[in-house]
């Protein structure tokens, strides 16, 4: 049963995930209409509380909210007044006094959405916290795979890149495992987190082995500061060993699809032609992002209107 907040895929069960994906399928149709707007959340306020800049995810949530007729307010503490010494819970309490119907939180440190949810009356939707989770990204990835392959169960999904610092990786591991896929990781050893097998995955240092028979290949974005001596010796070395191109893709299944959470460092994680053409489905991911976030706002926003009403709201639907 879907709870009050969407903090991570780890908290969801398979049925929750399927319900969100099913709802998103219907939201896709709204995006294809001439009038791409429904009155569902009219009079409701969705706050985008982004402590960490993210144009793309914020825009995706903003469009999703607006297509559901919610008023979407962007609240960016880092750009306004938040110093490092300001209590995040103070910020949350201030926001709560404004009585929002949902708060979408992004922060560079893991756990912040969780702690904000503890003091906030409104449902909290995690839009990415540190290297912890990015649940809407994983859900839109699962939706994309389901659309492309017709199923998720039984597929082999290979995630390549900086697993250690990736919230996308963690959320996708949970999501695809819960939906019955096999998940493999491939990365230079410093980018594989300690004890990652506890998540039900197998880590490879050989890209070729990790790709063998894969149905879905997901390349993660490499942060520039992690290149050039920090975790791998250089961009060139990373690109040569773990960058995807058509030749390396030969190890995967013939009908493999290639995904990337964006933005792509062209020529690093993916070769130029892979970034733009089949089997890459990156633009489908972006399109699905709006529909998936509409589904999430529909299922979570406005359900709890008073602090502490978590249990009551959790029983709805």
């Amino acid at each position, binding site marked *: 049963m879907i709870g009050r907040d969407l903090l991570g895929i780890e908290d969801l069960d398979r049925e929750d995930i399927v319900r969100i994906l099913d709802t998103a399928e219907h*939201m896709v149709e709204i995006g294809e*209409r001439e009038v791409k707007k*429904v009155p569902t959340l009219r009079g409701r306020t969705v706050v985008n509380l982004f402590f960490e800049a993210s144009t793309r995810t914020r825009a995706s949530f903003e469009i999703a909210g607006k297509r559901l007729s919610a008023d979407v307010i962007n609240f960016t503490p880092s750009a306004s007044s938040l110093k490092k010494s300001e209590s995040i819970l103070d910020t949350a309490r201030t926001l709560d006094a404004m009585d929002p119907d949902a708060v979408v939180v992004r922060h560079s440190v893991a756990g912040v959405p969780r702690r904000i949810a503890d003091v906030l009356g409104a449902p909290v939707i995690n839009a990415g916290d540190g290297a912890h989770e990015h649940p809407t990204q994983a859900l839109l990835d699962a939706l994309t795979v389901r659309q492309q392959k017709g199923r998720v169960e039984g597929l082999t999904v290979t995630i390549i890149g900086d697993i250690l610092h990736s919230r996308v990786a963690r959320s996708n591991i949970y999501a695809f495992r819960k939906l019955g896929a096999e998940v493999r990781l491939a990365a230079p050893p410093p980018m594989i987190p300690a004890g990652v097998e506890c998540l039900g995955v197998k880590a490879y240092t050989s890209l070729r082995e990790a790709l063998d028979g894969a149905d879905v290949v997901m390349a993660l974005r490499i942060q520039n500061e992690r290149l050039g001596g920090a975790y791998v010796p250089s961009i060139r070395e990373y690109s040569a060993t773990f960058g995807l191109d058509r030749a390396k893709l030969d190890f995967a299944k013939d009908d493999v699809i290639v995904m990337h959470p964006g933005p792509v460092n062209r020529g690093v994680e993916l070769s130029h032609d892979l970034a733009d053409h089949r089997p890459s489905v990156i633009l489908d991911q972006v399109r699905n992002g709006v529909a998936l976030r509409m589904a999430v706002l529909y*299922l979570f926003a406005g359900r709890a209107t008073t602090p502490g009403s978590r249990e*009551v709201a959790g029983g709805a*639907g």
Partner: protein
Amino acid sequence: MTSQQSARPPGSGTGEKASERSAPDAGGGSQQVARPLLDSTDINRSLMRIAHEIIERSEDPENLYLVAVPNGGIPLARQLAANLAQVAGVDVPVGVLDTTLYRDDLISTGSRPALRTTEMPSAVDGCVVLLVDDVVKTGRTIRAAMDALMDFGRPRAVQVVGLVDRGHRELPIKLDYVGKNVPTQVGEEVRLRSAGEGDSERLEVVVLPPPPDPGAGEGSK
């Protein structure tokens, strides 16, 4: 707005869909004693009569557009399309319009019903749209369907077809074509469902008594 819609004789509106509108399904409420209202013969006879009435009243039958309110409206609209083809030789498009996101009770109840497919095969601009629903009660679903419809263009007119009109209207909405007017109690449920196992083509309408816990449901037909 057409004259049919602007005319608001009291008590002539249409009804409400509950979220668990289960439409043509078998077995729902098997614990309860179902009182038959319409059997498949009654339904087919009503739909044929309605098809004739539609043709009689239409200036341009080529311009009709059937839009089903799921789930119960879907088989009825399909049957109506077949009847219209038989009666007047017209090929009327059938669309399906989910009204869930247009409901007016989502916030107050906090419920989040599952969405259903919307499929509009062609533009509605300039068409006379026939909204088709199985059971009409409060009129709120028809209101939602009209709002949804307007997001798909500007029909020349909108008319409402209901197989069963239970009364209990809460909005000034009337049916243009009705299969049967049935006085019911508020707590009862009127349901279109499969008449027999393994035969989804044969439909029936039954009246189910109020559920034991009246607070459990979130609206009944």
